[in-house]
């Protein structure tokens, strides 16, 4: 693994290299979904406590990203998309990334327990464990279902946000979890369809490598179909309302149409137009999640003015 491989050292690590270890782009999604989970909860949270909680959830997510980069440095070095990450690029040493990830994990969990509650901190600790150990160390290299089960790690943040406010879980927080969980496979498999050389070179058992591209297209459609009822159900609960339902219907209709198009496309056609449909589906998947969670937030705001929600 990463600790037996030496990477070229290119000067001293700068502050930005440590920030890059935290996967800031993934972190921004974590911050947004956790914030929505916290704000749509039926219990109010003091702004300072809320701010601190979101910060430490993000820090925990970043720490698990650093642990992932420590463990996966060998395959990151092979893939074009990841070879400029701090460890394979030789900017941060492998052991440093490990220490950084472990230290930040501890700080994030303890500080979340102190600023919010033990339940939320426990969920954060489990999420870090799930991403770093269950996904990165175990599933990623051993099964093509890696994305499906690993997606759970990315699905926890809104649940943690909800737990910060309420101290527990509920149908609503479980549905927000389900939404990201079901969304992850089509999102990543669309990426795998047009970044095919990368995963192949690294030997990661992506569905495209193990079961072929036609099967991947079929699985994208299956998960997109399964995602729709979760999304609609979430819109029908206390965090939803007519506005969220309308948004969910439109988003799922567009997403389903994209998944259907991907399923129907033969590989030579996709190759001929440089995976245009797959790329636009991938881009829309990002918009899907952002708009869906934004809709929950808008609904909560409308409710504050006596407009939204299922009265």
């Amino acid at each position: 693994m990463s600790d037996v491989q030496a990477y070229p050292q290119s000067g001293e690590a700068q502050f930005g290299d440590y920030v890059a270890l935290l996967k800031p782009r993934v972190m921004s999604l974590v911050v947004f979904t956790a914030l929505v989970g916290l704000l749509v909860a039926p219990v109010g949270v003091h702004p300072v406590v809320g701010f601190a909680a979101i910060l430490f959830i993000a820090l925990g997510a970043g720490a698990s990203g650093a642990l992932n980069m420590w463990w996966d440095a060998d395959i990151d070095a092979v893939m074009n998309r990841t070879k400029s990450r701090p460890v394979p690029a030789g900017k941060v040493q492998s052991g440093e990334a490990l220490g950084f990830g472990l230290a930040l994990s501890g700080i994030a969990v303890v500080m979340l327990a102190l600023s919010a509650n033990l339940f939320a901190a426990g969920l954060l600790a489990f999420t870090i464990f799930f991403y770093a150990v269950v996904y990165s160390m175990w599933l990623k290299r051993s099964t093509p279902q890696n994305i499906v089960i690993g997606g759970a790690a990315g699905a926890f943040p809104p649940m943690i946000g909800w737990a910060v406010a309420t101290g527990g879980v509920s149908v609503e927080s479980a549905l927000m979890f389900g939404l990201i969980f079901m969304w992850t496979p089509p999102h990543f498999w669309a990426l795998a369809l047009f970044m095919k050389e990368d995963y192949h070179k690294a030997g990661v058992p992506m569905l495209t490598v193990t079961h072929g591209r036609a099967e991947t297209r079929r699985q994208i459609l299956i998960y997109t179909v399964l995602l729709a009822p979760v999304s609609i159900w979430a819109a029908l609960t206390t965090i939803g309302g007519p506005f969220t339902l309308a948004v969910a219907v439109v988003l799922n209709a567009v997403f389903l149409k994209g998944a259907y198009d991907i399923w129907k496309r033969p590989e030579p056609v996709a190759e001929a137009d440089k995976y245009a449909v797959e790329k636009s589906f991938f881009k829309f998947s990002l918009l899907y999640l952002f708009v869906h969670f934004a809709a929950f937030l808008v609904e909560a705001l409308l409710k504050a003015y006596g407009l939204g929600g299922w009265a």
Partner: protein
Amino acid sequence: MSFRPDHELHKRRFSRNVGLGVTLVAFVALVFALTVVKVTRGDPMQGFDHTVRPEMAPAATGGTQP
């Protein structure tokens, strides 16, 4: 009196040191803000301090009074 010029090492580490310094100051400010919020909101902070304080005893629920 003249100061020795900075070693090249200090220049290379400048951004890292400034970044860490800013992070630590922000962390201290956050913990301070959290403390102020928790104290002013009156989160439970009293504990046993070797003196009997009847106001800390749990309220009696039912039972017979003489």
